[in-house]
């Protein structure tokens, strides 16, 4: 089973191919250049893996939250691949992708992914990781929220949490102060990786959690994008 994954919701342009347990990834930091790099990177990836696009069984993508244009690039591209190859599509939360990356690296169970959402807000979530199943599970809801209003709601076990994502760097002081009762381990991973998107997708596929091209849409979280209606 071959899963192709695309993640472009931040400055990173990331593509990965998961073939059974083997995963190859190409990951570049290319602000504003996703449109130029995405397809060449997919070509490089497929060449490296000696795989033709027609051999791909599933397409996964980071569906956000993140930069609106970025998540639409991943979504549009993934929809196009799903439709043209007649394969199922799996949208994966970018925050879950970050959490999954941190969980593997730190082997820790409490993860707070946080992405800078501009306009003095962050995308924020509480994820827990179960080593047995290899799954990250969302506690509560993913939010777009002012850093001053963020909450950590783990109440079992030790007080160690993994902080991951660009939001923790932008609001470092504010967030560490607000959550000072936790022992915060700062991950240096800033951006989500396609590799993690692919691995989460694999679990979703096993659960039968897949979609048709046009049903896979971005998760924006921020829905107030207009000013008040006029007259």
């Amino acid at each position: 089973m071959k899963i192709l994954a695309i993640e472009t919701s931040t400055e990173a342009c990331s593509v990965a191919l998961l073939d059974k347990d083997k995963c190859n990834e190409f990951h570049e930091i290319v602000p504003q250049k996703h449109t130029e790099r995405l397809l060449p990177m997919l070509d490089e990836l497929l060449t490296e893996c000696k795989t033709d696009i027609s051999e791909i069984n599933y397409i996964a993508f980071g569906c956000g939250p993140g930069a609106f244009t970025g998540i639409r690039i991943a979504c549009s591209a993934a929809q196009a691949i799903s439709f043209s190859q007649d394969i199922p599509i799996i949208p994966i939360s970018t925050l879950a992708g970050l959490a999954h990356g941190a969980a593997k690296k730190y082997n820790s169970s409490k993860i707070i992914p946080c992405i800078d959402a501009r306009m003095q807000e962050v995308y924020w979530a509480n994820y827990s990781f179960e080593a047995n199943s290899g799954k990250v599970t969302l506690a509560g809801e993913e939010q777009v929220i002012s850093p001053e209003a963020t909450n950590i709601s783990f109440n079992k076990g030790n007080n160690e949490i993994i902080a991951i994502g660009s939001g923790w760097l932008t609001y470092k002081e504010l967030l560490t102060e607000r959550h000072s009762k936790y022992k915060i381990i700062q991950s240096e991973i800033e951006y989500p990786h396609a590799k993690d998107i692919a691995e989460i997708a694999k679990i979703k596929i096993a659960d039968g959690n897949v979609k048709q091209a046009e049903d896979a849409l971005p998760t924006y979280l921020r829905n107030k994008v207009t000013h008040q209606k006029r007259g």
Partner: protein
Amino acid sequence: MRVLGIETSCDETGVAICDSEKGLIADALYSQVEMHTQYGGVVPELASRDHIRKVIPLVKEVLQMANMDKSEISAIAFTRGPGLMGALLVGATAARTLAWSLKIPAIGIHHMEGHLLAPMLEKEKPKFPFIALLVSGGHTQLIRVDKLGNYTLLGESLDDAVGEAFDKTAKLLGLPYPGGPSLAKLAEKGNTDRFHFPRPMTNRPGLDFSFSGLKTFAITTVRDNPDDDQTRADIACAFQEAVVDTMVIKCRRAIKETGLKTLVVAGGVGANLRLREALGVEIKRLGGKLYFPGLKYCTDNGAMIAYAGCIRLLQGQEPEESFQPRPRWPLEELF
């Protein structure tokens, strides 16, 4: 050759298939106008969010209409610009990735070239060289077209585009967005003789336009007159007459200056029936030929993009790898 065209530059998602032998064989359009109406204009972020919901369903729809499998598509054309960045990006990404996945070429099309060539979707096609009057929500241009990709700007609006002038004046008269069609409808009930609007920039030489003065004139006319239905209709009528008359005068000038006798009108305002009628009379008088796109191909659509892609590919244009949109892209930079 069968080219799939995808247009997402503003507030319509258009997808179509053009066959190099048979012409247009399928065409589908989703308009977001209703959604934007409540905001009094296009909200760019909402436009992008809507396009991404519609592109794939419309591609499926046109393939079904044409009774075709996706493997039978020879190439994909998409609107590269000008337009709204976020909106363009959705269509460009989908188109370019579809082409990549199907291993066929993709080609980025200039939106205004699409409009300009839209009259060629009709049975009777204009022949090069000709003069094109491009009139839309964002453009008012007179262009000399010697052949595909050879465009010389003869004149353009120095301020508001003509569609914009229609929309703003319509708003002033309390008409819903987009104002052009509603103003034209109201003008039908108006009396031509009650008000007289100026014909901007017609009493000096040149082919440039200016429409912001008409809007100001409309503001004072509305302010100084009673607020009733007939008055509003009379103002709409006088405004439309002034715009139409101005365009007729400039087109006549362009024909005289260039010696070209074929005029092609394209863009959303080309749907205006009064303009069609007046230009028809004038061109007949001058012994020239006038071409319009069909009414549904005046405003944004996928058909014109599929067609432009088809003829550019037939002409041997090389496809490109990048799908970076060009939100601002002067037509004269094309070749």
